[in-house]
């Protein structure tokens, strides 16, 4: 499984690097301006211009330029953002923890809740609880995450004033310790709920459907015949197998979750990578946009690789398959 997926990750990386490399160099006019954005022209001195031209090998043929580009990235140099007056990597890494917090919380919440509800619902297939849960989550799965986010914001933020409207912290509050944690949680609550709700429905539907098919398998019948307690059959025998597609899908859905986070962050003015993307779009800070694309893609690939490893632990059949 791992050996099979490595070419995929390499292909994905090449696509990202290719897009990042080709796009600015395709643009008419000064390539340096296309790479760095208009903001750079203000700060540009002749010396700096020569230095940048050389570090990107812009006076050389295209394949040498690509090599130079790869070398720069391998050294962790994603360029310099003249808008933020800081190295791009630094700008992005400064925002990354907030996005990781948001995505992490939403992923964990939606996966555990979704799998739990899916197993319970699939077990009670056709009964009242299963039917009502199925209908609820079906309806929920249709709503786009950012609409859920907007409604939550208008309802609990604007109308009821229960939660803060934007940001991740109360600025200049000087809070520390428990009060700071509570402040972060209050700011996190609405965006995480919006992200979780969308993903929860997908996890639930997938688990329930798998559970329904798994329950027809002979090994479940066998477990029953052995007289095992209900709970053991539900979780150890059927549930564990219903978990597999959720784990696989989490990797595939990660891109979608990142997309959802982008919009949620914009709606809630959250200072993560989504907010940064929005800012960079407004200020035409191309270097930062390229950096975000690269960092996000790398993270998504890394998580997928981690999931491959996890999969082997959950499903030992995979290890012996090759």
């Amino acid at each position, binding site marked *: 499984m791992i050996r099979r*997926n490595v*070419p*995929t*990750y390499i*292909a*994905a990386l*090449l*696509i*990202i690097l290719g*897009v*990042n490399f080709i*796009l600015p160099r395709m*643009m008419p006019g000064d390539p340096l301006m*296309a790479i760095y954005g208009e903001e750079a022209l203000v700060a540009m001195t002749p010396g700096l211009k020569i230095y940048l031209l050389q570090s990107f090998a812009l006076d050389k043929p295209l394949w040498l330029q690509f090599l130079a580009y790869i070398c720069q990235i391998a050294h962790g140099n994603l360029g310099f953002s003249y808008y933020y007056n800081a190295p791009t990597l630094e700008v992005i890494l400064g925002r990354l923890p907030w996005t990781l917090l948001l995505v992490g919380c939403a992923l964990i919440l939606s996966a555990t809740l979704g799998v739990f509800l899916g197993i319970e619902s699939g077990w009670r*297939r056709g009964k009242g609880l299963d*039917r009502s849960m*199925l*209908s609820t989550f*079906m*309806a929920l*799965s*249709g*709503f*786009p995450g*950012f*609409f859920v986010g*907007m*409604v939550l*914001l*208008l309802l609990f933020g*604007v109308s009821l004033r229960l939660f803060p409207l934007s940001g991740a912290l109360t600025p200049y509050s000087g809070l520390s310790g428990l009060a700071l944690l509570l402040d972060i949680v209050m700011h996190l609550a609405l965006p995480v709920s919006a992200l979780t709700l969308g993903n929860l429905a997908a996890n639930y*539907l997938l688990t329930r*459907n798998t559970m*329904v*098919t798994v329950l027809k398998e002979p090994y479940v019948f066998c477990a029953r015949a052995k007289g095992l307690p209900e709970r053991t059959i539900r979780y150890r025998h059927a549930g564990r197998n219903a978990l597999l597609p959720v784990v696989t899908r989490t*990797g595939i859905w*990660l*891109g*979608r979750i*990142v*997309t959802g986070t*982008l*919009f949620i962050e*914009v*709606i809630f003015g959250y200072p993560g990578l989504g907010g940064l*993307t*929005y800012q960079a*779009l*407004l200020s*035409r800070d*191309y270097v930062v*946009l*390229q950096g*975000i*694309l690269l960092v*996000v*893609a790398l993270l*998504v*690939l890394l998580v*997928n690789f981690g999931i491959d490893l996890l999969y082997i632990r959950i499903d030992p059949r995979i290890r012996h398959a090759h």
Partner: protein
Amino acid sequence: MHISIGAEFRKNRFGQVGLILLTAITVLALLAPFVVPVDPHRQTRRSFEPPSALHILGTNHVGQDNWSRLVHGARTSLLVGFLVACAATIIGAVLGVSCALRGGLYDGIMMRLVDALIIIPAIIILILVFAYLKPDIYLIIISIALLSWAGGARILRAQTLTFKERAHIWAARSFGGNNWYVMRRHIVPDLSPILVVEFIHAFRRGIFMEAGLAFLGIGDSTTVSWGTIMRNAVEYSYMNVWSWWLLPVGLALSIAILSLTFIGHTLEPVMEPRLREEASA
């Protein structure tokens, strides 16, 4: 693959709701010039007006009629969704089926590309591309379609692989049918239920992406888009105008996506026949 799409809809109430909602939006969009007499672009001095007989949903920050913009936004959304779905389904079908029939190195390379495209978050690539190229509506459609076919191609390839070994395909081949003939006369007709499902998924993706990009400020400024309306409305969400400005548009977009999701769920048993006896919820 002998599955009646009509039968799936008769059994599934969600599917019926989805069909009705989608039809309603489509009719509204087609009848736009008759339903709204006001030009969606025309600006007036009367901004932030509450709903009235003249402006059913009030006016926005530059005095444009909200209802008119909502209805014309539906046209953009449906047009983008429909064309993205057509393009993505065709690309997915041709590449998926040809991979299954040819196999070998071509198949190997294409499938790595497909997997890579499935993992990468498409929206971030689109954002970067459109930051450089000022897009018009057709460039947006083409770009979304080029990043949306991969999931379909994978499923279609897997299905074709199972068809490939069946007796009637062997029969067609023994009479001298080549890859192209077999694909056109046997495989694609057999795949049609799956193609419909893929079309619906791509349709939804297209609508979502267009609105999302416009919400971020990326779009064709000459067309009215739900995403742009929401982007403008969100900026004024602290005022008391959101209930007739932001909410109706958010709802319209949700209904469009919701209806396609329901239709997609209803047709899901086509892909996974083991679920069929369950689907009647």
